[in-house]
């Protein structure tokens, strides 16, 4: 398994270059897919002017961004203003360093794992990098020196801190059962049959993870940080040209990487029954990459689907969802998983009890919320809410 140093370095470099490019091309694909799918959902055509069926639309968009005037307003805090769009891209790019995107490929006798780095703190690394995602938004917002930006940044940081907790806690159940932090190990342990994948064993945690991943990308229905109707453009109001495009790209990259992580942790990674043994040691590796991409693409479709289906949350709804529903559900899921696993070692029982307890938690929380509801809940939503004038 241990490769010679030169093979390791060369293969790693190739993998890094390929992964980064696939990510960038994926962003272009996502821009097109977003428009096409939204057109399909809203029963219209979507882009169809640039190239056949509009497939060159992302290139036209890119050229537009590049050629626009790169404006730096006078009132901004210049170093931070210029740094923020770069900072927001970094977490998305470096997270994919630990995600296994395939089994392994055998080239001239060397078995090369299809993963840039299989580190023993993989899940912790992802959590650490995810927690940095908030910096790009907050710094861009503050450096813009604009009240709409600042409000967007404050909302976003509060939202991301709240949902990061859920994101981290929802993975604990998975870690208890796999007793490993390595993403490759977690993916392999799930096996290749869909009914043995983690999303069935940890169904409530999986839902919580997906919701938190949505919140971390700042997309609808969690896009209060850039709510156009209230905050002009939110944290990227003052950004133009390529700097705006970097925020834009970062959103899509976060989606892609988030989907890839979800696939690895909950959907068995690159595995699918019957397809591991097809072809030789070279082709089975490529097929596993293809399976991984299909699974990730499904998640990305769900991202777009949700965006064009659900309206935006109100700020108090957002905080209620995060703190009063998702957090108790994940905590209950950890307790149930740990207890059942310690006594019975039965994954079926863990899966069933997780769902049952999550339902009980939701029932208790919603009953309590209904019972203690104030007669006039809309007035004071704290410092982060928009003013009364703009909401009426």
């Amino acid at each position, binding site marked *: 398994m241990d490769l010679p140093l030169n093979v390791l370095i060369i293969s790693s470099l190739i993998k890094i270059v390929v992964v980064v490019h696939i990510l960038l091309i994926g962003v272009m694909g996502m821009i097109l897919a977003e428009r096409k799918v939204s057109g399909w959902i809203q029963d219209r055509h979507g882009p169809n002017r640039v190239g056949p069926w509009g497939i060159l639309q992302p290139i036209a968009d890119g050229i537009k961004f590049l050629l626009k005037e790169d404006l730096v307003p006078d009132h901004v805090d210049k170093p*931070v203003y210029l740094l923020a769009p770069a900072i927001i891209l970094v977490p998305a790019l470096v997270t994919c360093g630990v995600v296994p995107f395939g089994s392994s490929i055998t080239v001239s006798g060397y078995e090369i794992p299809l993963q840039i780095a299989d*580190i023993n*703190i993989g899940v*912790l690394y992802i959590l650490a990098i995810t927690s940095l995602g*908030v*910096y790009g938004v907050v710094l861009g917002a503050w450096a813009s020196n604009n009240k709409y930006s600042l409000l967007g940044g404050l909302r976003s940081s509060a939202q991301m801190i709240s949902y990061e907790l859920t994101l*981290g806690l929802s993975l604990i159940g998975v870690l208890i059962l796999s*007793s490993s932090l390595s993403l490759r190990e977690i993916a392999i342990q799930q096996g290749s049959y869909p009914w043995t994948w983690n999303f069935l064993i940890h169904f409530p945690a999986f839902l919580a993870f997906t919701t938190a991943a949505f919140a971390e990308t700042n997309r609808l229905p969690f896009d209060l940080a850039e709510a156009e109707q209230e905050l002009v453009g939110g944290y990227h109001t003052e950004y133009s040209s390529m700097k705006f495009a970097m925020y834009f790209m970062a959103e899509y990259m976060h989606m892609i990487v988030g989907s890839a992580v979800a696939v690895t942790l909950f959907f068995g990674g690159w595995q699918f029954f019957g397809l591991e043994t097809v072809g030789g040691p070279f082709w089975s590796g490529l097929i596993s990459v293809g399976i991984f991409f299909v699974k990730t693409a499904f998640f990305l479709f769900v991202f777009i689907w949700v965006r064009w289906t659900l309206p935006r949350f109100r700020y108090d709804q957002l905080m209620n969802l995060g703190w009063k529903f998702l957090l108790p559900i994940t905590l209950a899921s950890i307790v149930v998983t740990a207890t059942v696993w310690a006594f019975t070692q039965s994954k079926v029982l863990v899966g069933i009890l997780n769902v049952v307890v999550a339902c009980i938690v939701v029932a208790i929380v919603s009953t309590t919320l209904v019972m203690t509801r104030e007669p006039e809940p809309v007035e004071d939503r704290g410092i982060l809410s928009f003013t009364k004038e703009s909401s009426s």
Partner: protein
Amino acid sequence: MAEQILFIIFGILAVGSAICVIAFKNPIHSALALVLTFFSLAGLFISLGAYFVAAVQVIVYAGAIMVLFLFVIMLLNLGRLQAARQINKAKVFAVIVGIILAAEAIYIGIRVYDGTAVSPSQAGSAVVGAAITTEQLDQIATLESTYQLDRAEINSTYVPKIAEQKSTVETLTASEANQLIEKLQGEMGKPDRIGTVLFTKFLLPFEVTSLILLAALIGVIVLVKREDPDTAA
């Protein structure tokens, strides 16, 4: 070699950004410099083999604590409260005190450990080719009990990596046993090892920290709770 390079890069980054923390006028810039310091320290932890601590460092400090700082600075709009920079006697005195303190600390750092003390992992490396000593066996046994390792696991996974064809600890030579001990110690930063020690030897302190966090949680809620929303702000 790799560790030296990492130490130089991250050491310079850490000291430089730490100086920036106290030199920048704007609190936000200071906070960002502090984030960079924490990152450099995480890099140093990795070069020291403390992977778990490095990850927790980034999660807790860069991801939670500094975001909280930024949040408060932005919420209170403290950027506008920049005091005019003045050099007075107190500051000069403070810098002098600081330099004396640094000199003292560095002197102690050099003197306490001058490189001649024998670290446990190097003990008994005198004779090359000699059989494993009882001290080394004791050391391995201690490591096993601390990290709850299995002798069979060590025999099957670690021993062949050090000396091929050998499959038990007892057949190793003294120098190979040293390598084994070093390897076992070098992996103590792995999350499972840290977890084992945390939940056996340090179980009570671990539980006590949860009380600290609970106390902090209650304290914060009490401190920032507004009595009457109409009179505040």
